């Protein structure tokens, strides 16, 4: 297998947009191609991620549409959908295409737009990512899924609502320095703790927002990447799945797919959690960040809440988590999130993150989770 590098990244502003999800991806892709300093004609394949376009925009067959908006109509295109992990899944497949020697340059990313539809419609469409027989009819929502996980973690380890609130406060503090973030505003612990319950024990400020946005990455083979000064290497990219059904999870306090994907990515990279300098992980809810920091091996099971409380996951702490502001503050356009996390890690490893830069970062990790914790991707990146 050939080495693969990221040679270009692009991201729209996250928040509310008037343009549709494919346009948002196209804008991000334009910036990624410009950043890569390549001609659009160098791109040999397009991998596009989107989740709710069929329901929210009455638009399917979106990958050739994305290519059409970019003016790249002679390349193979594929659309991916794996709930919130969508564009990280697309990324892994794009990496495999380049690693296998099928293409030298591949464009990958995603776009999502949901803020033009009412919240209860968006909640319903996101809910389609859980099972339609056993879960949707019960009225389970995604805050509900993570509330079940939070309750189990609290019961088993004594994790508190205040510890979860620390995750939100930290990610908002980080997001202040991200010009692309949806919310660039610090919040207090009291704001989180006094916000209304959405799905007990999760409150409004434990939840990431609905977001419109696009993200894109240009991947290249080693031969092409060597001609670029700012290439960041893909050291590993692994996927794992777990049962879709909440009723089949062996231990609700753990996300075993995270543990298995992390193991795979660390093995490919020949690295371990102790080698990682900066992390972008899937904090769709504050408890998700706590469980992920345990599953990725940064803290022992049960210590994630304490780590958040002690500031170990802040920029400047033991292991900086979500310097971009994470899904919580930067926003979560679900089809674009995986690619957006990769954009941040590449920016960090290039040393181009400005006021949110993790000094001296050489190895970065991205973690993206989809649906009822049934899809998890972990990728590792390095400066060399």
């Amino acid at each position, binding site marked *: 297998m050939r080495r693969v590098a990221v040679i270009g990244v692009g991201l729209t502003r996250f928040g509310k947009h008037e343009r549709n999800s494919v346009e948002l991806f196209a804008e991000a892709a334009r910036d990624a191609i410009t950043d890569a300093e390549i001609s659009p004609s160098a791109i040999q394949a397009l991998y596009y991620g989107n989740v709710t376009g069929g329901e929210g925009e009455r638009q399917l067959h979106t990958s050739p549409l994305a290519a059409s908006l970019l003016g790249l109509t002679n390349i193979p295109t594929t659309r991916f959908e794996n709930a919130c992990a969508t564009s990280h899944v697309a990324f892994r497949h794009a990496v495999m295409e380049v690693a296998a020697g099928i293409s030298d340059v591949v464009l990958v990313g995603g776009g999502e737009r949901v803020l033009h539809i009412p919240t209860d419609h968006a909640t319903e469409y996101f809910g389609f990512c859980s099972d339609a027989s056993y879960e949707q009819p*019960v*009225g389970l929502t995604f805050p509900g899924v993570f509330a079940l996980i939070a309750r189990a973690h609290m019961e088993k380890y004594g994790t508190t609502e205040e510890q979860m609130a620390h995750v939100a406060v930290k990610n908002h503090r980080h997001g202040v320095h991200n010009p692309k973030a949806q919310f660039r505003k610090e919040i207090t612990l009291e704001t989180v703790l006094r916000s209304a*319950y959405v799905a007990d024990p999760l409150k409004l400020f434990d939840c990431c927002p609905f977001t419109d946005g696009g993200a894109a990455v240009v991947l290249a083979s080693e031969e092409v990447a060597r001609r670029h000064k700012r290439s960041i290497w893909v050291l590993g990219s692994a996927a794992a799945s777990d049962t879709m059904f909440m009723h089949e999870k062996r231990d609700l306090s753990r996300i075993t797919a995270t543990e298995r994907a992390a193991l795979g990515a660390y093995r490919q990279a020949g690295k371990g959690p102790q080698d990682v300098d900066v992390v972008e992980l899937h904090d769709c809810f504050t408890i998700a960040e706590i469980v992920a920091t345990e599953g990725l091996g940064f803290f022992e099971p049960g210590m994630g809440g304490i780590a958040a409380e002690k500031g170990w996951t802040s920029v400047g702490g033991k292991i900086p988590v979500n310097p971009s502001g994470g899904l919580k503050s930067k926003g979560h356009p679900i089809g674009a999130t995986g690619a957006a996390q990769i954009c941040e890690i590449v920016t960090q490893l290039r040393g181009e993150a400005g006021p949110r830069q993790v000094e001296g970062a050489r190895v970065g990790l991205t973690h993206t989770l989809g649906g009822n914790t049934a899809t998890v991707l972990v990728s590792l990146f390095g400066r060399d």
Partner: protein
Amino acid sequence: MTERVITLKSFFEEARAGRLTGIRCGKCGELAIPPKEFCPACQQRAWGPVPLKGEGTISSFTIIRVAPRGHAGEAPYAVAVVKLAEGVSLLGRVVDMPLEALTVGLPVKFRPLVKGEQTVVGFGPA
């Protein structure tokens, strides 16, 4: 080899009549909620139906206060993962119990919640 004995349709038809049905692997004894082609424990295909008593305890729960379209008028409502006495778990709506009385470990009993054509797994007081 056996045919798939319980489909989603038949599981919910039975549930509508108040009967919960699991499937047990004839090779290794694994118990599962249908449908399932291969046994996740031993990868064989030797399922047979087993009745479940519907008695269990709450292993985790939440109170949904922001509901999706279709359930909007029902909020707040409780959803729980219930570990059944036989060892498998099932997700269901908790009914006929005060929301503030719910705790992990609380005993509950299955009851079908019938809404038009749809049958939903529910749990009420044990």
